[in-house]
């Protein structure tokens, strides 16, 4: 199993979901308005989307903007912390790699 969103129908907080769509490296993903980019990626079954210097996969670690492991490019802007940025409908998210950076 993977990370998942609590189903709205089962959720004790009584929320109403408005769906949103983003893309990750061109592939369409769906999420819920209000989610962070990291939340949308995790909820779509992605646990990793960035590569460390060795090319090893990385995803969310601290979840509150301190570790910078979850950096993504959003609509062409690099180095956005996916755990801190709210996803917007239509966001084009692309993955980053420190390995590729070093090779440049």
């Amino acid at each position, binding site marked *: *199993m*993977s*990370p*998942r*969103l*609590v189903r709205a129908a*089962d*959720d*004790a*907080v*009584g*929320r*109403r*979901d*408005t769906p949103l769509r983003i893309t990750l490296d061109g592939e369409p993903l769906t999420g*819920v*308005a*209000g*989610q*962070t980019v*990291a*939340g949308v990626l*995790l*909820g779509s079954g992605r*646990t*990793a989307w960035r590569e*460390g*210097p*060795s090319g*090893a*996969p*990385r*995803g*969310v*670690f*601290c*979840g*509150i*903007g*301190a*570790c*910078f*492991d979850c*950096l993504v490019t959003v609509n062409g*802007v690099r*180095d*956005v*912390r996916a*755990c*801190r*940025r*709210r996803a917007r409908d239509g966001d084009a998210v692309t993955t980053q790699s420190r390995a590729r950076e070093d090779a440049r």
Partner: protein
Amino acid sequence: MTRHVVIAGAGPAGLGAAAGALRAGARVTLVDAAENPGGQYHRMLPDAYAAARPGRLQHGWRGFERLRGRVLGNPRCDWWPESTVWAIDRPDRGAPHVHVLRGEADAPERERHVLRPDALVLAPGAHDRALPFPGWELPGVCTAGAAQALAKGERLVIGDRVVIAGSGPFLLPVAATLLEAGSTVREVLEAGTAAALVRGWTRRPWELAAQAGKTAELAGYAGLLARHGVPYRTGRAVIEARGDGRVEEAVTARLRPDWSVVPGTERTVAVDALCVTHGFSPQLELPVAAGCELRDGAFVTVDGDQRTTVPAVYAAGEATGIAGAQAARTEGLLAGWIAGGGSAEARELDSLRRRRDRGRAFAARLAAAHPIGAAWPGWLRAGTIVCRCEETTYGALRRAAGDPAGNSAAAVRLATRAGLGPCQARVCGPAVAELLGGPAPHHRPIAQPIRLGELARPPIEDTATKESAR
């Protein structure tokens, strides 16, 4: 003229400080990186969720809502959400200047502001401290705080077969949150031995009685774990995470009181997520930038009225000692009142100071009951990554530390790049400091990333006259 107080951070301490400063008659600018106040403890659901019962996931929600309403509804309070303090300076050695970026997280072209208040209250909060172990860089391994933030903040469950491991009472609310969200928690592992916990928690029981709310909260979690059949094991830790491209199993082992592994006690447990926490690291870059002295290199030094060693700068909450939300709010109330020009002799401060002192005693007890065992580096192997950003291994650190040509901690950091990556040693700093000796680095003149284009544009001056003319 009305005093202007800037408060950095709108968690329990910052909100308390805002309330205190407003009560003293000051004008307040309350700055926080999030869209809503509450900090990590009262992390709120996004407005877009239109949640009918947001308080369901929260302890002390009513009190928080009252405080939030009183602060944000006060005409003398200017609430700056999505605003990041990226630098503090004191050009004339007077009250500090506070440099703020306003706009979406890490967005380009945020507005750059400079605030020149009469007083500054720093309430930056803390994040999980996580000790390294082999495989901790695998996706699916995250801090307990990450699991908590995702579940409380957007109802995302990090996994369905989860082990929560580390040390400290924070293990319990995270387990409770995951259980509430329908996840299966395989086990909760407290590295401290049962004897150490009992010693720490039963000493001076009258202090605990004064923290009845906290004690009841912890007892509630224990009951919840029992009802769900989740084992809470003491003296046991995750010493390795394994998996192909993501975590698939955790290796746990029994620990001695110094956290060395008891050989032959290793067990593996299948997981899809592993959450770790070994206490909290206060976020100290803003206090350090303001010039505040630190106590033991780990917390901001404050006096009985929450004054730091820098004139006109106050600190409250986890930055002054890890004591939890209630204590943070009390410290904030006191700091805000004094920063706002309230009299230090005011009679109502007596009970506030008593509550604050009880909070400090609780923090000391917490630290004593959950010390980090000195033998934890025994979990590491030569190839274990210590600095996640730069993938500096334990072996590389030891080699550099043993090199007679440059074995100062600073030289080792330069040679291995440990702590010099994007997180600027926020994550590995305490661990590297313990491995090399010496204090953890907190000096980050640029406290939060700012883009060159933002730096290049002139800042917006927020002078007192302009603001009060609104």
